[in-house]
């Protein structure tokens, strides 16, 4: 039985006791004659009774968050145990050949990235009805804690729902950038129009994405563009370009 909007609203009216007279009698007959409809009505009644209990839903939401947090904490502990063993092993390696090790691991792009990168401030996002929810507050906290892996699915969902919110896109792009999903970050930052209020932000983070990708020509080109007009990144862009060219 196909559920249409009309039928769904009729079921709702029936459950709410808003049908009367012949309309009610006809609908009750329909239910008696159609077991599938009867099941649908019962499910809707149960759904209604369950989901109006917001307190219980909020409690379950809390449990899901706690469960995720405990899993993350367990993962961090495992990594830290692993890292303790690794550190012991690494100190032997350092003793064997520190200079060789450092030379092999020298990565100027990563060093420059670390020196110039600062995450896009999520706190700057203008408050609206869609960003005043508890879920969004949680996203803000996770982003500030640099829990980028955790925050990406939620931000992706928000960006899909609010495609015009460019600050959310910047935060998502930053999260990709910090989790080495560089192709995704590149696509996202590339799609900012030159008319956008956040054009220079997107260009700056795109230049840092290319820096991480070791695409020197692209990085240089973008930095030169940022130097060519007034924006908050102009000074840093000039310094970074100078360091790259040196």
């Amino acid at each position: 039985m196909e559920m249409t909007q009309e039928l769904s609203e009729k079921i709702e009216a029936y459950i709410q006791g808003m049908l009367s007279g012949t309309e009610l009698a006809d609908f009750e007959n329909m239910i008696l004659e159609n077991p599938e409809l009867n099941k649908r009505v019962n499910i809707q009644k149960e759904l209604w009774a369950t989901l109006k209990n917001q307190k219980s839903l909020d409690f379950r939401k809390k449990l899901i968050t706690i469960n995720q947090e405990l899993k993350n904490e367990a993962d961090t502990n495992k990594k830290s145990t692993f890292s303790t063993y690794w550190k012991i092993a690494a100190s032997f390696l350092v003793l064997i050949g520190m200079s060789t090790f450092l030379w092999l691991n020298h990565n100027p792009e990563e060093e420059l990235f670390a020196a110039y990168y600062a995450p896009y401030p999520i706190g700057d996002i203008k408050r609206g009805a869609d960003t005043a929810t508890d879920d969004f507050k949680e996203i803000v906290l996770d982003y500030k804690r640099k829990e980028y892996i955790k925050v990406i699915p939620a931000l992706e969902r928000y960006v899909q729902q609010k495609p015009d919110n460019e600050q959310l896109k910047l935060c998502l792009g930053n999260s990709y950038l910090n989790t080495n999903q560089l192709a995704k970050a590149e696509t996202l930052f590339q799609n900012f129009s030159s008319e956008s209020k956040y054009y220079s932000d997107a260009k700056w983070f795109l230049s840092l994405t290319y820096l991480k990708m070791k695409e020197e020509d692209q990085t240089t080109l973008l930095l030169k563009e940022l130097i060519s007009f007034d924006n908050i990144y102009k000074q840093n862009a000039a310094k970074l370009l100078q360091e790259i060219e040196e």
Partner: protein
Amino acid sequence: MNNTQDTIINGIISGDYIIIKEFYKKHFPQVKSYILKNSGSEADAEDIFQDAMVFVYEKLESNSLKLTSSLGTYLYSVCRNLWMNKLKKNKKMVRHEGILSVSEANDTDILEDIDKTERNYVYQKYFLKLGIGCQELLALFFKGTPMRDIAKQKGYSEAYTRKKKFECKNKLEEMIHQDPVFQELKTDAK
């Protein structure tokens, strides 16, 4: 009832995040170990434990829980019964390896209540899997907010709000129908 137990109960009722997290951290490992030893997965353990916690919360909140043991022991009884019910529906054997320290006295009451609530837990679980927009809209609707007020609050037209509500509810029902647990529970539905 001792002071610690009072604090935990009050913390659960008032939604105190730290107390609930501590309680979760303390009791989940034993439940997980029991379920893993009895044909379950980690995801099963999480589902069962969360369902049991919601069960306990609703009982505490409505002041209908008469504890004859510690809250932890009662929770284990709920978990064990929920899991046994699920296994029975899957026609799997319960081996009871890694017995949970439960009080048998709890079981009769719990079993009666569990049958009434299992379907509700499926509804809650899938509701929370919907996008934020759908969750907010449906929460307002189920709370009894008139459609014109929801439309105004969301900045939509009333017609669009009704359409959106229908789509969200339909999506929720589709997810629920696809859930294997719901399929099993359906056969028992009156």
